[in-house]
Each structure stands twice: as structure tokens, then as C-alpha cells.
């Protein structure tokens, strides 16, 4: 796992993928920080945090499209899958590498909090909750992305599927609300990543939301392992 993690992390910054991802995220977050806080003279960052989910839907596919698809495309998976590392270890290594790059991206919000600190002391516990929520949301998105990447050999296809999947889980509650069946919209509300995440930005630290995202990570990474495993038999 360690070897895969190191190689993946390095490859994000040898190829332009890591830089493109970070640049897009920083630009959008900077713009939103200006729009939601600085221009209005507000020091609250909850609007900034809730606005970040949209950029994640757009940029997480860039981060994860390569992970599994490229290995299959260039046949390097033959090296990985015939090594003494388990598929679980390989997938975990890839996930952690993507997650570290993602953490580097969202750490910009810490800088923004420090900027607002000049004007007034922020509510640190709420801020911490927001950042945890953002990290968990990202982790779940990344695991969806890795799963999409393992379903295809083509990076662009993987990115498009991932984008569609992220859009779906983000707007699930909005879609559910338009349906005539009440129980469906209730289920959609429960499963919508956006609803779970917005709870964090409201300053509510609900352990069920934390568990929801962690389980999502495990479910999609597990599916990735299973799909890769199954391919051996097809």
C-alpha cells in the first residue's frame, strides 16, 4: 500500500493533473471567499463552505479519472496485480494519495479563516466542523470517483461518469422533492450528499452524518475492489 501511495502522490505532481486540480479549486474558493465574505464585510464562512460542493462536483473527476483507468489502459495493472500487494491495499493507496492532494486543496480554507481572524475571532468549533465536513464529503466523492475510474479503461469516460454520479448524489434531494411519492423524497433526502454536508455548514455536527460519509467511502472502495477482482474471472 505504501509503495502505491507514494507513487500515486508523486504522479499527481509529475503530471499536470495535481496542479490543474489545485489551481481550479483555489481559484473558485478564492472567488467565493471574496463574494461571500470580503465584499460584504462578513467574517462568517458558512456560505463559502456550502458553495464549495459545486466545485467539488466539477474537479473531483479530474483528480480521480486516472487512478484505475490509466493502469488498465497502459497495462501497468499487470505489475500491480501480480505483486504481493492485495487489491484492497492498491485501492487504499490510491485513495489515500488522492485524499492527501484533496486535503492540500481544502487547506486553503484555513488560510481564509486566518484572514477573517484579522477582523474578528471566528467560532473555531464551527469552523472545525465545517472543515471536517468538507474533508468527509471530499473523501466520499473521491471514492465514488475511484469506483467510476475502475469501471472503464478510458480516462475521459471515467471523468464523465464520475461527474454525472457526483451531480446525482448532490442533487438527489432536489430530484426527490419533484417526485410525487413522499417516501421516495424522504429516502432521497437521507441519501443526498448535499443535505448531509449542509448540516455541517449550518454548524451542526451530527455523528450520523460523519458515519454516513465514512460508510460511503468504504462502500465505494469495496465496490472498486470487487469489480477489479471480478475482472480476473471474466
Amino acid at each position: 500500500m505504501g509503495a502505491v501511495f507514494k507513487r500515486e502522490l508523486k504522479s499527481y505532481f509529475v503530471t499536470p493533473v495535481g496542479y490543474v486540480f489545485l489551481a481550479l479549486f483555489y481559484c473558485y474558493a478564492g472567488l467565493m471567499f471574496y463574494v461571500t465574505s470580503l465584499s460584504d464585510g462578513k467574517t462568517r464562512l458558512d456560505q463559502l463552505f456550502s458553495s464549495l460542493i459545486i466545485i467539488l462536483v466539477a474537479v473531483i473527476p479530474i483528480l480521480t479519472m486516472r487512478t484505475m483507468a490509466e493502469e488498465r489502459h497502459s497495462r501497468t495493472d499487470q505489475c500491480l496485480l501480480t505483486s504481493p500487494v492485495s487489491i484492497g491495499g492498491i485501492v487504499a493507496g490510491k485513495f489515500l494519495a488522492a485524499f492527501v492532494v484533496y486535503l492540500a486543496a481544502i487547506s486553503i480554507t484555513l488560510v481564509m479563516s486566518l484572514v477573517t481572524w484579522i477582523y474578528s475571532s471566528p467560532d473555531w468549533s464551527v469552523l472545525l466542523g465545517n472543515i471536517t465536513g468538507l474533508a468527509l464529503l471530499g473523501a466520499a466523492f473521491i471514492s465514488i470517483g475511484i469506483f467510476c475510474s475502475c469501471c472503464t479503461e478510458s480516462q475521459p469516460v471515467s471523468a464523465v461518469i464520475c461527474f454525472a454520479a457526483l451531480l446525482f448524489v448532490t442533487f438527489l434531494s432536489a430530484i426527490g422533492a419533484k417526485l410525487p411519492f413522499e417516501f421516495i423524497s424522504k429516502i432521497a433526502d437521507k441519501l443526498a450528499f448535499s443535505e448531509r454536508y449542509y448540516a455541517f455548514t449550518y454548524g451542526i455536527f451530527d455523528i450520523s452524518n460523519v458515519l454516513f460519509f465514512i460508510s460511503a467511502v468504504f462502500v465505494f472502495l469495496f465496490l472498486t475492489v470487487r469489480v477489479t477482482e471480478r475482472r480476473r474471472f471474466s
Partner: protein
Amino acid sequence: MVEVKNITKKYGPHKALDDVSFSVNDGEILGFLGPNGAGKSTAMNIITGYICANSGNVLVDGCDVCEQPQKVRKELGYLPEIPPLYPDMTVNEYLYFVYDLKKCKLPKLSHLKDICSLTGIEDVRNRLIKNLSKGYKQRVGFAQALVGDPKTLILDEPTVGLDPKQIIEVRTLIKKLGKRHTVILSSHILTEIQAVCDRIVVIDHGRIVADDTEDNILSRFDEQRNVYVTVEGDKQLLRTEFEKLGGVEKVSCTKSKEGVSSFVLRTDKDTDVRRAVFETAAGSNAVILEMRTSKPTLEEIFIKLTENGGQEEVH
């Protein structure tokens, strides 16, 4: 020791491998020979555990590849048909990565240095893999398979893309490795298999059509012998005279020009007709310019073997 037992692999309705069994003893170099699409790579992929067979199993030193993959894979070095290289890494970075990936315990720097000098890639260690020529890429792939000093090496067409000098180098290297490692080498190049391997398995349309040493395979098909004669003299007369000789099954004239004719006499394997041919020619006042005998080559046998396999498949 690698034992392959009754392996069948299907891709949809197509059977890539059909009940394939063979074994490789320690310290043996086994040549896996077959035309393109015969199932060589599929077999290699199954032995290394990259894919699993639909039925049958592969045992490496008694451990099942699918049931104890981690243990088996530590003792396997695999060079796939397309070397699994990351183009954006340097050779050094790549080998370090493989070293970590294989959880190798040998002293890192000296071990990798040995491998690099063995495969002749010391000069390119700091270059990006994507900038290397095909021959060097192949060698880096080879080096990758050697990391961790595995007991068994599985090489899928290791000399593809190399120039003639490198091919000879790689063959020498494989022979050298064969002293300490068990090697399974696949190829569709006969001379390569002949030059390197102790034993040959011929596969065609997913089935094993021969499994023996080169000499035994040759002698098995050594039922006929051809005698090539070039004579100066009367073509028709010689032909009828040759046909009368005992043991001659068929006489064919391949070339006839300005009174010089070339004949091919097919005889059974126990009869040597050369003396009789000489006497016949002398008796008819003809001059023998050239005479030689030939046994079937491995190449001819290979074509024969694979033709049969193809016919069986059609039935």
C-alpha cells in the same frame, strides 16, 4: 516447481485455453511455443494470477496461485507482453517503486545495481521511461521482473522489439538466469526457443499439441527423410531409375536447366539411399554435382503440429 493442472479459460463462448496441463521443474527453462493467438499470454497471465482460470489450478511450489496469491507472488517475476512501465517515472524511480511494491528484503541499492548491470540499463537509470527506445523499455521490464530475486521467472516474449545483438544478449541472460531460476519463456520465434530452452511445450488453439525436449519432438516426427540430389544427365532416365530404388517413396524434380536437374527423393527414415543414388547415377553416365540429406526442422514440425490443432478445432 510450477504445476499447471487442467486449466480451461473462456472468453465468452471462445475457449482461449482448453484443459491445459504441464509442469516445470526447478531450474528448468521451459519454452512455450505457439502461433499468435494460441493462448500463450492467457496461460502466462493465469500462472501469475493476473487472471483466474474457469477451471483447473496452478500450483507454485505446492501453493495455489488463486488461494495463496500473496505468498506465491513473492516468488514470481513476471514480464508481460507489454512491459508494465509508468512513462512518467525515471528508471530509478520505477525500480525503487517495484522494490517497495514487492516488499523486497534484499539490500536495496546493491540489489538494484546488480539488476541494472545484468540487464544493461545502467546508462539510462536517470532517464524518463517515456523517452527510452523500445529495446530499453523491454530491458527495464526485464529488470522489473528480476527485482526481489524471484525463484520463478515468467517471460512473455522477452525479445520482442530488440535488435539482433540485444536478442543474443537477452538469450545469454536467460540461460544464465536458468541456472538459478525456473524460467517459463513464451515465444513464437522458434530459433529463440531452440537456443534457450530445455523443454518445449507447443500450444495451438488453446490446446497442448506437444510437450517434450527438442530432440524428442524432432525424433517423433522423424519418419521421413529427404535426399536432395543435383545431377547432370538425362532427366527422364534418372527419374525412372531413382523411382526404382528400394525405400524411395516419391521422386520430384524441382529444377531442370541446361541438362542439370535437381531431385528430391523422399525415403523412409531407416533407409539411406545415398549409396544407391550414386551407383544409379554412375550407371547412367550422369554426374552428381550435389547430394545432401535433411531431417525435418523444428520449424516444419511446428507448422505440422499447429495445422493439426487447427483442424481439430474446426471439427
